[in-house]
């Protein structure tokens, strides 16, 4: 499984790409594998606020529906419209084309609560039975 170094990770298996005070969010390779073939992604509207650890949407496969949790507090400034027609991108390119939202961050110190790739990899190996 693939956990790129430049990203930060959450316990709920989201990744965050930080660019100044803009944080782009998606789900990790581990999450997409657990879900199986993704059939639908739904995110809150652009302009809405999210809290760190709060729900910003859902991702659905044929066997499960999972909530999506925001890694940081802020306002959603962008949402990936491509996923509406091509949810399968979550399985094929979870770190690239299947980015889900971009949050304008309010409190940079929240980033300290996130894991780096190494920590996340270790976390995943204890999670999987």
């Amino acid at each position, binding site marked *: 499984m693939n956990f790129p170094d430049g990203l930060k990770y959450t316990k709920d298996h989201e990744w965050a790409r930080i660019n100044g005070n803009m944080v782009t969010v998606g789900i990790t390779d581990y999450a997409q594998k657990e879900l199986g073939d993704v059939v*639908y992604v*739904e995110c809150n509207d652009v302009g809405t606020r999210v809290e760190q650890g709060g729900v910003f949407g859902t991702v659905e*496969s*044929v*066997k499960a*529906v999972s909530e999506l949790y925001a890694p940081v507090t802020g306002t959603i400034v962008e949402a990936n419209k491509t996923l509406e027609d091509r949810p399968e991108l979550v399985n094929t390119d979870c770190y690239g084309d299947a980015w889900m939202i971009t949050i304008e961050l309010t409190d940079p110190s929240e980033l300290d609560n996130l894991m780096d790739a190494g920590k996340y990899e270790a976390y995943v190996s204890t999670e999987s039975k």
Partner: protein
Amino acid sequence: MSFIPLSREERKEILDAIGVEDEDELFETIPAYLRYKESLNIEGPLDEEALRSRFQFRPHKISFLGGGIYNHHIPAVVDAIASRQEFYTAYTPYQPEISQGTLQAIFEYQSMMASLTKMYASNASMYDGATALAEAALMAIRAKGLKRVVITRATNPAYRKVVNTYLQFNHSIEILEAPFDIISGQVDLDALNDMVDSDTALFIQQPNFFGIIEPLDKIAQTAAKAGFWGIVITEMVSLGLLKPPGAFGPDVVVGDAQSFGNPQNAGGPLLGVLCTTKAYIRRMPGRIVGLTKDSSGKKAFCLTLATREQHIRRGKATSNICSNQGLCALRAAIYLSAVGPKGLKKIAAQCASGSRYLMELMRKKGADAIFKGPVFNEFVVRMEDAKIQALEEAGIVPGIRIENLYPEIPGGQLVTVTEMNTKKDVECMVERI
């Protein structure tokens, strides 16, 4: 009579294979103090003839009963096909490879219901119209965080009671009644206008409980102000005559399709209907069949959007519904196929004509219908208890007493006419008024 096909020897053979001396040993895992040692105080076993004589009933020969459950013609093909064991003994179609019959039939039911109502999609059924309405109210509340549910007072009281039951512990939701106009029997549009806003879910029955056809074209403008609105149809045969409800822009259409090929059955099983617009398909409770293909590209069907349902989402499911009214939906599909578009229109015309015929004859005898609005197949008159008793003694049931449900209509009696009544039935009744 037992349905156990094992002989004594075979039971012994099984015991030997398991390595057990006596059947009782199999239950040693049940604590001794929980073992029931007595004989159940139950009658039987009875043979088939004894059973046949036990279950004898005598429905009235001439009846004008409706109010949510209707006596309609059921073509012989419906029973013939629905009694095929592959349909009625089959399990829920979770294994699509060997349930294509059920799946395709339900897909066709969904298609016909969506087409008749001119809504985007239909689910595979709910228990009945009342629970479908309750679930639609829950859907609206969940989707939009609404605070108020407004249902017209002229919507079937049984339906309104069930909605109250489902919402009784949700103390943040207000349930209100929109009054009807005492002259026309239709909803009071001015009162309705004051009750509806973006925090409201509105539901209105068409035709309403009094059999009166509501002016949905005028109501639609007010309804559009609601956060969510739905049309309730308890008599689906009206779709043979009236404009499809979807044309007026509701978010849902709910109701009961018992009229489509299902007998009255002393009150059940019924057939709950739930249709939505595209925006709400992911929030629809219940099962839904979708079209797909198999590994070789052949057309196939399967249950879809199942992740919203109880067996996967569990505590976060859109509903708890598991078994629905599958066989009743199959019967509806066969019925609709059997009668066809012109047939349904004809039956609806007969219902509307029959009620007008009876109303006309009753008017001539001084028993006017109470409301002035146009009716479909039922109407309300005033009738005294003595009159009703006399009719019943003559073998005629002249409708349902509704004055207890609507105290503002003393002596209120809901009289229903369908294509199953005859001119003679009508004349017989009028004779005795």
